[in-house]
């Protein structure tokens, strides 16, 4: 069952790569906002991190992840604990959570922006979601980012137009805190997997998706990416993982998350210039 699949979509590759971000987390609430992060957290819980906790995205903690989309009338959600939004913050502030989200901007410090673009704060050029729970998530527990369209509008030069979440920025470090208190665990995109483990918390390339080059990643990132000597290829999903993903996503919502739903195995140099859908943050 654990044989690597030869045919899989880029979305499926990303789901597996995102799932890896939760490896070793143990018993924490895994919150994946958006189809690919949610399927990733569910896959991790169904396979190598069985102690993860997950909600139904509404008001209940589940012992078993719900499949996405409309479920058959006889589906019984495996509820185990009431988990209304007010209680979510008891969990957030305890630190026993790992969220994976998709901000609109991510700067070289790992600071992210979900609030507004351009203009002034009183009158932004583009109003977005607002800070939502990003400030609290970012200072309370580990967080990972999923970016379905890796480009230098997301990974932009300079600092975020609005800093919604704390990052590794010495100039903004609160009194009594250390940069090492901040835990931006993993950044997964349609091109590669990264973290902030480079020198001085510089963003670092961990693996390239099949057919993607270091140059592509750097060209599409508005600041220098630390590239280790050896950069492996992002592992392909196993057939077992693909079947679990298919069961978790019976309506194939994953096919609509990356523009044109390309294959995960791409001829070198080619990449879809996908535009990430708005929202999806949380």
């Amino acid at each position, binding site marked *: 069952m654990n044989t690597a699949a030869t045919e899989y979509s880029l979305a499926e590759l990303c789901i597996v790569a995102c799932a890896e971000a939760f490896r070793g987390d143990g018993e924490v609430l895994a919150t994946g906002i958006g189809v690919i992060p949610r399927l990733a957290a569910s896959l991790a819980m169904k396979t190598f991190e069985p102690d993860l906790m997950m909600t139904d995205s509404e*008001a209940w903690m589940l012992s078993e992840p719900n499949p996405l989309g409309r479920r058959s009338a006889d589906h019984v959600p495996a509820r185990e604990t009431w988990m209304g939004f007010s209680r979510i913050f008891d969990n957030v502030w305890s630190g026993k959570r790992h969220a994976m989200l998709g901000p609109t901007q991510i700067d070289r410090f790992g600071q992210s922006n979900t609030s507004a673009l351009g203009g002034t*704060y009183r009158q932004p050029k583009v109003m977005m979601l*607002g800070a*939502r729970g*990003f400030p609290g998530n970012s200072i309370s527990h580990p967080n990972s980012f999923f970016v379905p369209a890796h480009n230098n509008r997301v990974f932009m030069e300079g600092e975020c137009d609005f800093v919604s979440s704390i990052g590794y920025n010495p100039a903004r470090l609160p009194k*009594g805190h250390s940069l090492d208190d901040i835990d931006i665990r993993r950044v997964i995109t349609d091109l590669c997997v990264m973290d902030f483990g480079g020198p001085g918390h510089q963003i670092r390339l961990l693996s390239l998706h099949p057919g993607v080059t270091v140059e592509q990643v750097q060209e599409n990132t508005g600041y220098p990416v630390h590239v280790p000597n050896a950069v492996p290829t992002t592992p392909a999903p196993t057939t077992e993982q693909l079947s679990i993903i298919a069961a978790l996503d019976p309506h194939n919502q994953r096919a609509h998350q990356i523009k044109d739903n390309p294959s995960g195995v791409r001829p070198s140099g080619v990449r879809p210039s996908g535009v990430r859908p708005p929202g999806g943050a949380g």
Partner: protein
Amino acid sequence: MDKRMTAAEVVAQLRDGMTLGIGGWGPRRKPMALVREILRSDLRDLTVVAYGGADVGMLCAAGKVKKVVFAFVSLDFIPLEPYFRQARQSGAIEVMEVDEGMMLLGLRAAAWGLPFIPTQVGLGTDIIAHNPDLKVIDSPYDDKEWVAMPALRLDASLIHVDRADARGVCQIAGPDHYMDDWFARAAQQTFVSCDELVETSYFHNPEQARLVHWERSDTTGVVHIPGGAHPSSCNPLYGFDVPHFKAYTASAKDGGIDAYLQQYLGASEEEYQQNVGGLDAIRAIELPTY
């Protein structure tokens, strides 16, 4: 005590410049009928505190709002509330942008009579940089700095519940009451619209009384408006109205709020419900799947 009143009587209790809390979450269980009654009034200069959806968007578009205290304003499946977005991008409103949890702490501080609750949330972000009113303080017990999230004291709150009795005992039987208990406790006056008006004896069953999330002393007035949360949801009674929210969102690009209100608002909730297909149609809207 009989706290029953009409939506018009609720709005008559409100004053220009008040700070108004609105319960619910995004497109979920919003007191929209009470919001519509405000749209029919000449009330203005409101400061609105909410986990915002179309309630905030409509009030902004209709010129009722001076300032919004928010962490997001969203319709969930339509992530960006169209009229709130317009209000922000035109610079028409002041804002205090906070984290979702900070808002909860601010409501609790008000409910508990505290000036603030300290939190690390917001440190290192523009939440602090753009909110000069948010003070950062030292702790007498450690060497860290902390955000002193101030009490969000509300002159009045508007909340929609599943059912209530005439004395103000309110039940939210849906899976999540969101932060509505804190909106009720943080406010000087709390006005509730309910889908069902019941006898007090309905709550004698402990399983029913468990779902009463604040004391009747925190409820000022009760308005019986079946379907009053439309187009937002009142799970388990009805879901939110996806086609209506799509039409609402489209109006922001074509015709604006005046066209939307012209088509739907009407002179009363009865007219509104006729304009959207009637109560049976509202009650027939299926629940969203998350």
